[in-house]
């Protein structure tokens, strides 16, 4: 058993995190806000050159063949800078669904073309799942993977009609979509479709959990800086216990959400449609941390925290949005306690890791 990341994984995270910190600043995020599309094309081609789009695609299909635990720290780093572009969703959720469809011999003539296009960086795929009412950045997608009933449909943008919806988070570009769910665009159905939807939900919730951890970290760092610089009564406000304790509580939630997210990443890597419990735990812990971070960090910024000028809002608003997407707190908590109070639930100290772990996750699934 080893619950740590390899030096390679940590080095890769460092490299990506420092690229993100220099490229994605509060100023560049605000300049995205001023545009219609909301994405920075130059940045997206940089992401492609780094190989992120093909990271989780098997080598046989032309990808790098890495796993979810290789990417999870990068997802966290994207959250830490409140990256607007849907890079994490693309790498961790929509591309793996494309791969699953291709892998299982499903789909139609278009699927190979779409996968190749994604790997080449020529095509973007947006994902619509029943649990989310809107699709983010649907206007810059070339293809859509949309679920309806048990079915999953692969639809070109020409066959989709979009209706723009405004998000409270100016970094998001939401759309409600409609399309004609005819047979020739359906790539999966029945049990197979339901299973793929479940994997997708788990991957999506995990993607958000990792970003929420990063967002929390970002908020915490800004707040430590602010409370160290800001003086009242002749000293830094951060010297006061009442202020310290608010941020200490956030630190506890964030640090303790991390391994839960990493553990879920491991399980999703092994068996994404049997990871309900691990993923719901991760989403719930990360959302709780991020919502507390939003609340406490706004509070310690005083009146400044309530201004449009204060950059903290970039993070807090994202946290509010991501905490609801891919299943809100109620949804994930329900999945947890439905499982927990079953008669055959495998409880007890020996079932946290090791021999019980796969079995109980299967039961959860």
């Amino acid at each position, binding site marked *: 058993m080893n619950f740590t990341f390899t030096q390679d994984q940590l080095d890769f995270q460092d490299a990506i995190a420092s690229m993100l910190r220099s490229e994605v600043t509060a100023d560049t995020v605000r300049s995205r806000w001023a545009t219609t599309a909301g994405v920075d094309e130059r940045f997206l081609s940089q992401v492609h050159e780094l190989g992120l789009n093909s990271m989780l695609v098997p080598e046989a299909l032309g990808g790098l063949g890495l796993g979810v635990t290789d990417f999870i720290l990068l997802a966290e780093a994207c959250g830490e800078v409140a990256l607007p572009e849907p890079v994490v969703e693309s790498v961790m959720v929509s591309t793996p669904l494309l791969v699953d469809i291709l892998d299982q011999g499903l789909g139609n003539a278009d699927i190979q073309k779409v996968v190749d296009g994604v790997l080449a960086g020529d095509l973007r795929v947006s994902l619509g799942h029943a649990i989310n009412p809107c699709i983010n950045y649907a206007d810059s997608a070339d293809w859509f993977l949309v679920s309806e009933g048990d079915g999953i449909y692969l639809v070109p943008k020409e066959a989709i009609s979009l209706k723009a919806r405004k998000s409270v988070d100016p970094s998001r570009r939401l759309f409600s979509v409609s399309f004609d769910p005819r047979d020739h665009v359906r790539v999966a159905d029945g049990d197979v479709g339901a299973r793929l939807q479940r994997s997708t939900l788990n991957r999506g919730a995990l993607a958000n959990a990792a970003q929420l951890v990063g967002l929390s970290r970002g908020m915490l760092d800004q707040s430590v800086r602010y409370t160290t610089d800001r003086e009242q009564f002749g000293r830094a406000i951060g010297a006061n216990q009442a202020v*310290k304790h608010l941020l200490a509580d956030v630190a506890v939630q964030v*640090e*303790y959400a991390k391994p839960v997210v990493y553990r879920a990443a491991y399980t999703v890597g092994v068996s994404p449609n049997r990871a309900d419990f691990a993923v719901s735990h991760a989403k719930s812990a990360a959302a709780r941390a991020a919502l507390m971070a939003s609340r406490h960090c706004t509070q310690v910024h005083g009146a400044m925290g309530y201004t449009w000028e204060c950059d903290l809002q970039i993070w807090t608003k994202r946290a509010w949005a991501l905490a609801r997407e891919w299943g809100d707190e109620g949804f994930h908590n329900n999945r947890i306690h439905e499982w927990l109070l079953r008669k055959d639930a495998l*409880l007890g100290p020996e079932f946290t*890791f090791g021999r019980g772990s796969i079995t109980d996750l299967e039961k959860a699934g």
Partner: protein
Amino acid sequence: MELTFTAADELFRQEIAQWLNENLRDEFAEVRHRGGPGDEHRFVDERKAWERRLAEGRWTCIGWPEAWGGRGASIEQQVIYHEEYARAGGPGRMGHIGDTLTGPTLLAFGSEDQKARYLPDIRSGQAFWSQGYSEPGAGSDLAAIRTRADFDDSSRQWKITGQKVWTSLAHESDFVFVLARVDRDSVGHRGLGFFLVALDQPGVTIRPINQLTGTAEFNEVYFDEAVCAADDIVGAPGDGWKVAMGLLGFERGVSTLGQQMLFQTELDEIIRLAKLNGASRDPEIRQRIAEAHIGLRTMRYNSMRTLSGGEDGSLSREAMIYKLYWSSWHRNLGKLAMDVLGPDAELLEEGPYELTKLQSLFLFTRADTIYGGTNQIQRNLIAERALGMPKEPRGQGK
């Protein structure tokens, strides 16, 4: 990252499970599931005998090196050991301070002579230890201790004078490690020594403290020129703080796993009860049970992450956070237990003041957020040391 156990680890699991199955029976049947937090004062002699039985099977001090009678067990093996021990209903370990605090501290900071004199009796379940840190005037501010250790040139011994308080199970122990001031003029962290002191001597008086649970697990310990041999100071005079903090690091290391196993047993009992009396149909109770369960898993993942990261038990960010997290979790568990019981929560087991197991859990958890550093002190530490926030001006009250 690899979250499964190897075949060799599974063999180890079978070995300990089988041994416990063959030994935790007959004369030891009555101590199963006893002696945990809030119940530590019960079955003391039987649990000491159980320590000796464990020692015969080489199941004490398994994390120690083989040269000192341990098994040099890996972190994974120690996890398995704790899991199986809890599953079998192994009683609260009388030897746990010696096994997890005194032993590792001597191995890290002690002389060869000290190791040779103290480690074998800890390992064999012959010597039991307690911890002498807090004083009436030194609680949260531990460095304010005033207990003195003076070296008496004529008898070539240390003489210790002062008072310790909240000393768990001192009245059932053979030794206490004492943090005392070797330099009378010193203040704060400087000028301290870390002493190994026998409790059975004329200079030591132990008085149990009655707690709000109606029981007495901890004590006041008075030292009036209590003697301690010249070579029973760990490290040099003046190194006391370093040794004392090293020991606290061990307290937050592998021994946390055993604690979590006890928590799991308590939670399972609460879930069992909630299913039995129908409380589990209440959506609010269901929600809180779920939260308790995931909170406990969160703790385990964090301990595993910290431990598999090769942490040496130093005060890492995770370790600092741990106390605050588990104590708040456990306090909520105590409250949950009472709410699952409903009106029965008020009724005593029997007179004159015998609490049920869950009542005693509820009241005991009220101490969790205080001992070993209050939640407020923990938050200060996290903010100042882990987050690097500005230090609060200290010592300006007078």
